[in-house]
């Protein structure tokens, strides 16, 4: 656990893109080192306050420590080293993955309801509603979550705005091109679930643009909100 003494350094390192695992261990080591110096000085008869003050000098100022750590490229997080991977490619790949998982979940719910619970097209119970929720997740919520998460993490880590914006735009575009439908009626007693990623020409105009714009807007709003919050925290902590 980070004590107040090194809390500022910890935040500063994380914002500068140092990998969280290095930050955690560095802070733990600095805390232990500080305690060792204090114990050493106390054993020579110095007071607690004087020992702590001397220990802080021996360890180095926060500026010196931060500069030395940040200057090491080996300690940077992978998101800082490959922002295109962290904030564009991975969120983009997470989108079809979430879509496929939501479709598989819908198939699972349908199969369970028909084979185990014995529901039919005439007595479907809550199946159409549950499948509808899963479809909504795959088509609407998954792109928003992918873009929002990329923007949230990018702003929190102080990453340049370019990559989350590019990532959000691509996610918004791909997300808007996903579609899914479910039909289960006496005419289709075995049910039909379809889903895919592609352009459906009568809908390309307004509907698709609206979905893309909505996802992009949520992503960018998340980025701006988080960045503003981080900046506010920094200003509040600066002397």
């Amino acid at each position, binding site marked *: 656990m980070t004590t107040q003494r090194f809390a500022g350094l910890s935040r500063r390192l994380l914002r500068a893109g140092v990998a969280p695992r290095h930050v955690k*261990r560095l802070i733990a*080591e600095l805390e*232990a*080192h500080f305690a060792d*110096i204090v114990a050493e000085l106390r054993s020579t008869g110095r007071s607690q306050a004087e020992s702590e003050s001397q220990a802080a000098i021996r360890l*180095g100022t926060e500026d010196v420590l931060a500069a030395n750590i940040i*200057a*090491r490229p080996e*300690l940077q997080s992978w998101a800082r080293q490959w922002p295109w991977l962290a904030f564009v490619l991975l969120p983009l790949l997470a989108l079809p993955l979430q879509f496929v998982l939501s479709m598989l979940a819908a198939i699972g719910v349908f199969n369970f309801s028909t084979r185990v619970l014995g529901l039919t097209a005439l007595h479907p119970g809550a199946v159409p509603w549950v499948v509808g929720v899963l479809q909504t997740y795959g088509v609407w919520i998954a792109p928003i979550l992918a873009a929002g998460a990329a923007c949230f993490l990018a702003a929190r880590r102080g990453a340049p705005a370019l990559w989350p914006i590019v990532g959000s735009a691509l996610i918004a575009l791909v997300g808007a091109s996903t579609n899914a439908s479910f039909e289960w009626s006496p005419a289709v007693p075995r049910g039909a679930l379809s889903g895919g990623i592609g352009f459906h020409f009568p809908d390309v105009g307004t509907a698709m643009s609206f979905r893309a714009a909505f996802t992009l807007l949520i992503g960018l709003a998340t980025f701006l909100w988080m960045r503003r919050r981080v900046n506010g925290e920094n200003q509040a902590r600066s002397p």
Partner: protein
Amino acid sequence: MYGYELAHAIRESTREAISLGEGVLYPALHALERRGFLRARRRTVSGRTRVYYAITPRGNRRLGELSGEWHRIAGAVRAVLAET
């Protein structure tokens, strides 16, 4: 050795000729570990968790190279100073 012991050893072996913020040891240790020159092991001693560092065979080879380089440079500087 863990960080505090290392800082203490540096101070003693250099007779305090090298004075550095002891905290700057840690980024160097982490970087050497990332390059495979050091191995870090977490151990709990007397209720306190410490990270002990040990040199790896690769680190030993690199140390040998750097020591050789240093001796060549130091020898050259000594030779130049002896002539003046």
